[in-house]
């Protein structure tokens, strides 16, 4: 189980692009990188998942360099409603494994 490390907190302003970097030096060959978002008193919400290079969906982009030892979640033009905790997880087959959440990155978006 690859351990991930991410900043405890980040601050941004509305309209800015936010990049949250996650370190996973011991990632296994078959592991995917998955990001979840959690608002207070709500369940974690799946954002994006990738294996390598770049993945983009309607919410975010995920950049994974060739060595896969880190990844960066990019949130374009954040708004106040993006204030949340963001979790980076590294797993083979997240659909069947118990997920272990760390403390995540608490993103605070200011007006």
């Amino acid at each position, binding site marked *: 189980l690859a351990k991930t490390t991410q900043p405890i907190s980040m601050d941004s302003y509305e309209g800015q692009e936010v990049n949250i970097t996650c370190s996973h030096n011991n990632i296994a060959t078959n592991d995917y990188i*998955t990001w979840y978002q*959690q608002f207070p*008193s*709500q*369940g*974690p*919400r*799946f954002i994006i*998942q990738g294996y390598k290079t770049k993945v983009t969906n309607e919410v975010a982009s995920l950049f994974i360099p060739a060595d896969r030892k880190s990844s960066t979640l990019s949130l374009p033009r954040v708004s106040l409603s993006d204030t949340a905790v963001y*979790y980076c997880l590294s797993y083979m*087959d*997240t*659909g*069947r*494994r*118990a*997920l*272990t*959440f*760390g*403390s995540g990155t608490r993103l605070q978006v200011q007006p």
Partner: protein
Amino acid sequence: EPEVTQTPSHQVTQMGQEVILRCVPISNHLYFYWYRQILGQKVEFLVSFYNNEISEKSEIFDDQFSVERPDGSNFTLKIRSTKLEDSAMYFCASSSETQYFGPGTRLLVL
């Protein structure tokens, strides 16, 4: 968009009582999970369920807890003889390839 639903949204109970938390997973998912989050702490895995049996459980999931899929749509978590420290948000999740979480049940044990 299909989503996991949970009932009740809030539950208050007296210490020592039994509670049943209910979840309706996404209909074509085969794997089901319960997690909990004590206020201000991390999301913790409790148990996973597949093919009508527990596939994995954590140290937290002791004899006080049980899970059941009583019919084709519901997935329940029973907590017997509740303790003060069982107060938490309880999240159900289901998956095919990705785990999707429900909105949670806030359990308060008095």
